């Protein structure tokens, strides 16, 4: 079973349906036990970094994520759900960055590009041994964000360029994350979801 963590981030309907195409049962939940026990936990997220952290804390999400990783259970962060896995986020607060969950040590900062948000379909440079991008490494994925991490973390990375190069995905044993929205990336996104759910 795949659990999608509901911590007040609005549109989870298409995420639910997209993950269900993998053949797994999918539940949208804010229940800590269900979120901990599921074979895979998806941490979605739209909105601002600090608001997401606040929502996450309200459902004990930080603890659930840490506990799952230490007990070798898969977690997939999407978009802001990826960003909050880093140690610091500068969105709306450059001088005193917001604290993230801190799974990876890097700062999520504004992308240096003339047009923001980075909105639309962009390509990814993937690692040759990637699990997430197996068979779809030449495809484009749908991005909507203005901030990103730019430092290499985890075992395998994917990179995308908009104004500058940033981390568009990380695979790190039990925790993975994508800066783009696989649930909005058409057939390529569904294939990535399938790759992840097959690894559970």
């Amino acid at each position: 079973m795949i659990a999608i963590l509901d911590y007040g981030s609005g549109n989870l309907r298409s995420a639910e349906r997209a993950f269900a195409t993998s053949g797994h049962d999918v539940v949208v939940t804010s229940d800590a036990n269900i979120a901990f026990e599921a074979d895979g936990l998806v941490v979605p997220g739209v909105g601002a970094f600090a608001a997401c952290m606040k929502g996450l804390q309200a459902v004990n999400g930080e603890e659930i994520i840490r506990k799952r990783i230490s007990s070798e259970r898969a977690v997939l962060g999407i978009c802001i759900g990826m960003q909050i896995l880093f140690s610091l986020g500068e969105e709306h607060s450059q001088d005193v960055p917001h604290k993230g969950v801190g799974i990876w040590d890097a700062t999520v900062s504004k992308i240096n590009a003339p047009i923001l948000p980075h909105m639309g379909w962009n390509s990814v440079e993937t690692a040759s041994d990637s699990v997430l991008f197996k068979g779809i490494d030449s495809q484009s994925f749908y991005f909507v964000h203005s901030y990103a991490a730019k430092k290499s973390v985890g075992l395998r990375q994917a990179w995308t360029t908009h104004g500058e190069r940033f981390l568009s995905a990380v695979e790190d044993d039990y925790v993975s994350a994508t800066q783009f929205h696989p649930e909005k990336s058409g057939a390529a996104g569904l294939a990535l979801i399938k790759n992840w759910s097959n690894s559970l």
Partner: protein
Amino acid sequence: MSLSIRIIPCLDVTEGRVVKGVNFTNLVDAGDPVEMAALYGIEGADELTFLDISASSAGRETTLDVVRRTAEQVFIPLTVGGGIRSVDDVDRLLRAGADKISINTSAIARPQLIAEIADRFGSQVLVLSVDARRARTASGFEVTTHGGREGTDIDALAWVEKACVLGVGEILLNSMDADGTRAGYDISMITAVRAVSNVPLIASGGAGALEDFAAALDAGADALLAASVFHFGIHRIGDVKSYLAKNNYPVRTTTMK
């Protein structure tokens, strides 16, 4: 490799059906929105836009249902506009499955609505739809309401600049003079709006020949919206993308089934 330009078919929806008229009159029924959305997804649309032109609240409820059914089977971004007046309206649409919403008249009536939506849901969900026409305002472009039927005396460029400060994430620039004519996008209007904004810009109104799409990109558009040329099969989305790819514009090719 870089960010691809986006091709966005727009479906005008009323009472659960798709309609599109020339200059917003003479409506012609062009089908079921959910089916059309799925078809456009397969054909390579990079996003979809629904514009709800229902006059009644019952019609708007029907639209919520259309949004729900679309989001359940079409896994590309969906923008919904029309009749959105409050943060609660936005909340309902996002929960139904919309990824972005576009506002127009309600933001003109109360610009603070832009900041309220951006604060609650983030700028990335908020598209400012600007229906503009040639007029004697400072820049030569005026904002209109009610599908271009009513002028506001508001200068379109000043409005765009103000809306960017208030927090819109994207601009949908619709030329009321060009809309439905298939005589080409309003290139000088696109150039002018591009110059005063730094959020993504969607050009709309007037798409006809394949060259029109390229001209709008050259003027600074990041995405191209069109309705009748797609609905009536004058061009397939794949034709537009092949043409643009051949001319070295970055497009997303959909090689996967």
